[in-house]
């Protein structure tokens, strides 16, 4: 609780006690004393509201909550309804107190969820270590991170080996290794060894600060429901005030003209009830609170949503378009099969790996990885790369050729075609065909599950775009269950395909594009909502996308959509509930059925319920 809230709580308690005594005192016969005695709790609990209302009038900012409360309570006091006058103020203040505490709490729990802000950095200078504010660390400084500490700034490991926990950034605790030369990012927790890191970025450009900044600023981009509420509040409060004024004077005057008793007191009481009911605070506070909670909850799961407006769009996604590489497949190649002839499998792989030993091409790298042992280059001589075909080399005195079919033709060797999809690498030793390796991009763990999950969540269409060959693409699509494939696309054609989809989509059927953020920025920004995956450490991806998945788990897409749906459902619940209850109570108040007590419920009670409902947005872990 803040100092202000403690003070208010004391005042509320004091006024409550006074009222409990006053109600039972026999004061009927002493009207003046009664008035004075009731003014004590009234002013104790409500003096700040009266002051604010007065200042509002001076500043010509008449129609705010304080004004409504001041008019309603002063009016009740003037009508001699002392108990109700004080009670309305009392409940209003309790509501304010509760709202303040609830908002403060959720602010705090969101900050705790996003507990990645480093408090200090250990800087090493001339052999001495001193603890400083991370803001004061210059680029190129050497910092020391002990086990259990957060890495404060992005940098390169210079000394030491350790395991890092990225849970605070990605929502998953998959440990990462850090060795000298590795790039490490701020916000990770150092688990085992002492690391010495040469910083490469200033604090406010480091990953941790950028992510926090993003989350905090996310609610500045307002959603349509928030804009609606802002506009609504602007029209609503004056409308209600004039309504109350009319209610207070029109019916009695009409009655007077018709020759009946005007019953001014009765109608003014109704008008005051009307004013109490009308406070817009329940809606105005609960909507941003819901979005803030949703965005905070999502970020604790490694999903950064860059604005409330994107939260809204995300909840309406009906089509998800994937860029194949980096989202469904891992973007690195792997030897998935070896069709060997006369030579044993291991020996073929050994010869191929050595012949390719000089090359850094992804395909060559995958063969070397599949071999698994260290390639000793002194066994290799007479390496000759034939551009677009492959490599010839002498390994252990044998003439080895490794490459595509054209290399085989070039060497006058008859190769055997392969039925599998992927890149086929043929081999020949001493001019005799020895079989081929099948190399393909690996499908990500969980890709098929992610597509299934999206369909369950209510995404109607999944589309995969790729520059790859049709057969390869279709094979991948079949394995993971993607509905539609557009293959052999050039980068600008991807935008075109997306635009066709956009043109076909209905009004509330949004299209999300998922990419790895590396070279699909135009498509990311063209889609209704751009989702970048595996963004940990990639500034470009964080910049280009509307939603950023910190790790590269495709299952997070469905989760992000579900979080957005939950958040929006709560937002609509609150809007309909609050406006609905208020309208009903307003009607009952105007008809004279609702009294001040119901009015207090319609104001404070509805606000409390809406805030409690909004806080549910924070709980997204098991979605």
């Amino acid at each position, binding site marked *: 609780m803040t100092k202000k809230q403690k003070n208010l709580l004391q005042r509320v308690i004091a006024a409550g006690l006074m009222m409990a005594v006053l109600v039972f005192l026999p004061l009927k016969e002493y009207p003046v004393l009664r008035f004075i005695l009731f003014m004590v709790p009234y002013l104790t609990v409500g003096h700040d509201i009266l002051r604010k209302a007065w200042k509002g009038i001076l500043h010509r900012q008449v129609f705010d909550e304080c004004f409504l409360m001041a008019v309603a309570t002063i009016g009740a006091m003037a009508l001699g309804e002392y108990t109700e006058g004080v009670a309305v103020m009392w409940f209003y203040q309790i509501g304010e107190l509760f709202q303040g505490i609830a908002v403060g709490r959720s602010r705090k729990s969101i900050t705790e969820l996003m507990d990645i802000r480093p408090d200090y950095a250990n800087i090493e200078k001339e052999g001495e270590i001193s603890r400083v504010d991370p803001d004061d660390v210059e680029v190129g400084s050497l910092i020391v991170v002990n086990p259990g500490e957060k890495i404060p700034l992005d940098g390169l490991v210079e000394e030491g080996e350790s395991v890092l926990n990225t849970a605070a950034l990605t929502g998953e605790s998959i440990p990462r290794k850090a060795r000298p030369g590795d790039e490490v990012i701020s916000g990770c927790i150092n688990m085992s060894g002492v690391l010495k890191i040469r910083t490469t970025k200033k604090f406010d450009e480091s990953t941790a600060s950028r992510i926090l900044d993003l989350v905090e600023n996310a609610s500045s981009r307002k959603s349509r429901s928030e804009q609606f509420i802002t506009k609504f509040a602007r029209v609503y409060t004056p409308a209600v005030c004039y309504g109350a004024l009319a209610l207070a004077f029109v019916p009695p005057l009409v009655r007077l003209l018709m020759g009946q008793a005007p019953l001014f007191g009765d109608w003014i009481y109704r008008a005051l009830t009307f004013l109490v009911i009308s406070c817009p605070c329940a809606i105005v506070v609960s909507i*941003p609170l819901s979005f803030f909670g949703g965005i905070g909850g999502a970020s604790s799961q490694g999903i950064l949503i860059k604005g409330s407006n994107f939260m809204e769009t995300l909840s309406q996604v009906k089509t998800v378009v994937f860029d194949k590489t980096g989202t469904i497949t891992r973007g690195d190649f792997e030897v998935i099969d070896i069709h060997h002839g006369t030579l044993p499998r291991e020996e073929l792989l050994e010869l191929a790996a050595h012949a390719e030993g000089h090359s850094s091409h992804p395909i060559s790298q995958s063969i070397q990885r599949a071999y698994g042992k260290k390639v000793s280059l002194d066994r290799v001589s007479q390496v000759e790369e034939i551009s677009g075909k492959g490599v010839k080399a002498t390994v252990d005195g044998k003439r080895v050729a490794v490459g595509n079919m054209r290399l085989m033709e070039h060497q006058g060797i008859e190769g055997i075609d392969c039925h599998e999809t992927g890149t086929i690498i043929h081999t020949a030793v001493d001019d005799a065909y020895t079989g081929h390796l099948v190399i393909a991009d690996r499908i990500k763990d969980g890709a098929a599950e992610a597509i299934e999950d999206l369909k369950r969540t209510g995404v109607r269409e999944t589309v995969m775009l790729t520059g790859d060959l049709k057969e390869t693409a279709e094979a991948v699509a079949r394995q993971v269950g993607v509905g539609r494939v557009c293959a052999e696309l050039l980068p600008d054609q991807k935008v075109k395909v997306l635009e066709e989809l956009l043109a076909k989509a209905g009004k509330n059927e949004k299209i999300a594009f998922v990419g790895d953020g590396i070279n699909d920025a135009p498509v990311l920004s063209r889609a209704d909502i751009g989702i970048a995956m595996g963004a940990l450490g990639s500034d470009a991806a964080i910049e280009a996308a509307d939603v950023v998945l910190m790790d590269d788990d495709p299952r997070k897409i469905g989760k992000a959509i579900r979080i957005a749906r939950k958040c929006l459902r709560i937002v609509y619940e609150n809007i309909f509930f609050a406006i609905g209850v208020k309208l009903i109570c307003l009607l009952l108040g105007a008809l004279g059925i609702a009294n001040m007590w119901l009015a207090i419920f319609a104001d404070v009670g509805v606000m409390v319920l809406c805030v409690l409902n909004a806080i549910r947005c924070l709980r997204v872990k098991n979605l």
Partner: protein
Amino acid sequence: MKKTYKIEVDCANCANKMEEAAKKTAGVKDAAVNFMALKMKVEFEDGADVDAVMQEVIKNCKVVEDDCQIFL
């Protein structure tokens, strides 16, 4: 140029009003108040005197909501 300031305000509706007031201040191109983060983001017109403009913003915000603070 954009700058972010920490603010102190009690109610969400008041935060909206502060945003409106800041937007209308001369020298301010755009402003956004984030009630949950208690931050005000101000985008200044080119060549505006930031300190002077912010004094005006504070004055205008005080008019719509007396009980608010902006920490420069």
